[in-house]
């Protein structure tokens, strides 16, 4: 009996986890990744430390990448799925390497680990992203932290006061994003801790309407940020950002505890941009005929009991392609999807054998 042939689309935490588990279980795995490297969005956008243990991103992801490379996965970088067709004998897939010819493959089962994108804050006009250089989003600021280059883009000076604004492009009907991104709170607080760790002279303020630091993030991140790093929290949202007298940013917010409108100057402002389905996720779903759920992510067959099944038999899904998730959750889902995909492929092989007998 030949080894099951399984396609994994996407080389981020979920895809890496799925691919190496499958290969280690004896499957023939092809991993298709559109970028020229493995590691997904955390790597692409130069994330800095990962919560809750504040470990550098490479310490979290590099072991996974190494496992994939050592376990015999066929990694196709700079590649994308060009066509996709399911039929009785498997999934017929054409993969295109950048600038190269189409390669045809047949797979027994497929895992979509196509991931998320950070929401584009240009669309929340009142915050002046793209108008004021010192207004940054998550990806801008993570990169700044990872490169240890904390300066105001407007004048190159080290900021004295930085504010974070949670839920930008999340929990907001105005921009059609009804859901919580789950990560904005913990990442913002983590960023503030990183700032305070490296630059204790910088004041950090987090503007929030709710703090949702689930589980162990509560004490390891939220509480610790106050106890050890003196990160300050303001209960209320910033409604608009404008240019102040000296080129600083003026954040207008209501302090909902004091119940008064406030106006505070900052040198830098970080928008906690939400998560939405990546272009790759939406495109792959269209190619493979997967249903999307109402927020635009891939719809699990049953969100409670079958979270890594899609609406198409033989295609499974892992990670942020089904909704906002943290890296450990994506890694777990990768393994879960690997198990399901492997079982499906083996059952199929058994069925085929019985038919030919």
């Amino acid at each position, binding site marked *: 009996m030949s080894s099951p042939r399984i396609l994994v689309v996407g080389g981020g935490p979920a895809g890496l986890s799925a691919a190496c588990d499958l290969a280690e279980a004896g499957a023939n795995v092809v991993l298709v990744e559109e970028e020229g490297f493995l590691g997904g969005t955390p790597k692409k956008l130069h994330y800095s430390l990962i919560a809750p243990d504040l470990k550098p991103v490479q310490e979290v992801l590099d072991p996974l990448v190494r496992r994939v490379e050592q376990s015999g996965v066929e990694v196709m970088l700079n590649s994308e799925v060009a066509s996709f067709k399911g039929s009785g004998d498997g999934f017929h897939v054409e993969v295109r390497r950048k600038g190269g010819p189409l390669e045809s493959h047949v797979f027994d089962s497929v895992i979509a680990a196509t991931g998320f994108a950070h929401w584009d804050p240009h669309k929340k006009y009142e915050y002046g992203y793209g108008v004021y250089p010192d207004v940054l989003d998550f990806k801008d600021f993570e990169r700044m932290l990872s490169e240890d280059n904390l300066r105001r883009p407007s004048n190159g000076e080290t900021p004295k006061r930085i504010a974070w604004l949670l839920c930008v492009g999340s929990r907001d009907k105005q921009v*059609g994003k009804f859901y919580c991104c789950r990560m904005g709170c913990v990442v913002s607080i983590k960023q503030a801790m990183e700032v305070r760790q490296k630059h204790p002279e910088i004041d950090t303020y987090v503007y929030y309407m709710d703090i949702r630091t689930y589980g162990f993030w509560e004490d390891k991140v939220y509480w610790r940020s106050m106890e050890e790093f003196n990160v300050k929290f303001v209960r209320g949202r910033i409604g608009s950002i*404008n240019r102040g007298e000296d080129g600083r940013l003026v954040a207008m917010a209501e302090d909902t505890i004091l119940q008064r409108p406030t106006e505070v100057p900052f040198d830098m402002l970080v928008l906690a941009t939400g998560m939405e389905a990546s272009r790759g996720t939406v495109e792959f779903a269209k190619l493979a005929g997967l249903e999307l759920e109402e927020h635009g992510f891939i719809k699990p067959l049953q969100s409670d009991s079958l979270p890594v099944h899609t609406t198409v038999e033989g295609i499974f899904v892992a990670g942020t392609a089904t909704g906002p998730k943290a890296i450990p959750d994506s890694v777990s889902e990768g393994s879960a999807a690997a198990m399901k995909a492997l079982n499906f492929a083996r059952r199929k092989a058994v069925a085929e054998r019985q038919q030919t007998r």
Partner: protein
Amino acid sequence: MGILSADQIREVVRARAENRSVSDKKVSDVREEMWTLHDRGELIVIPITPENKPVEVETLFGWKKKVPTDKLWHHKSCGQCGNIPGYPASLLWFMNQFKTTYLNEPHQTSCTAWNYHGSGTSNPVALAAVAVRNWYRAYETGTYPLIHCGTSYGDYKEMRKVLVENKEVRDKVREIMHHMGKELVIPEEIVHYSEWVHVKRDEIASMVKYDLKDVVATVHEPCHYYKMVPEDAIYDSSVLGGQRPAPPTALLQKMGVSVADYSTWYDCCGFGFRHILTEREFTRSFATLRKIKPMVEEAHADVAITTDTGCVTTLDKSQWVGKVHGMDFLVPVLAEVQLAALAAGAHPYKIVQVHWHTSPVEKLMEKMGIDYQSYRKDFTEYLNQIKSGGKIEYLYDPHSEIEKYFAVNKGQVIVEEQALKRGE
């Protein structure tokens, strides 16, 4: 009670708001439903025809909006006509320059929304009927309503929505209209005069006679232009990164004016509808401290530019009293069309009527290079001429006596009959 479930909320919101993000989501556009009702004979849509020479623009969500540029019915603003007469005069002056056909009639009421927002002494049926009565007058004369006031513009869009979505109000308003021998009509688009100016900005800018590059302007965007029905305001990706409404900034930039940002850009002017009349401590404090002061101290504005009645009034009139607190700013406040008219060589007193402004415009005119003193002398002579019963100058031929009483002209012919004075 009264609180809807998440699914109901989603339905309501999907039906009326839009996300600025995912393009393949379908959002309800009240204009589509309006046409359906038109087809069903429930109301009559006043169409924008090729005769109106429409120009297409984009609004907040990238939707298209047609802005008619000809055969217009001026829906005047009571605050402009009452306190800032150079505002409509400048607009009509430009229209004469462009040989635009229009009607400016006594057969119009205000939208009455200033009163409603100030006092609560009205209701949706009355507000909608007032709107339809005015629209109908444009309809029966074969012209298209151009709304001068930001509040009328916002109110009329709300009334359009009420009339389209609420059958009870629609039926009642239709009944009232029938009692007056009129029909229930709604214009295809609700169009603000600043949108006409916006689509005419190239032509206007080409008429500029003075060098405006040293003129620093701060823009106050009128709330009822872009906050009341956000999805209908004009945005242009080439103006302010597409993140703030394009009028009037696009015109100012086209004319070579330096447009400066300031920290309270999003704030309202402090007008408050009732406040400007009977709570003026609030209005003048807000206007001076929250708008004028940042405009002067942060942006060093030579002039504050806005596109609505209440904002010009509030920002202009509220400054003088600031002297009490040592805030001697007196920044001129003009509508964009007034500044444009000044720049294009219109008479500062006879047309732009700057003498109605309490924060003097003379210093600005000097900076622009306008010889205002000779214009002023000319105007003083003109006033003496009027006092002694001499000839009065008009932008179009005055109405006949009978029109003080009756809206007699009902046909297409009226536009031609009006014998507009052209040019000079």
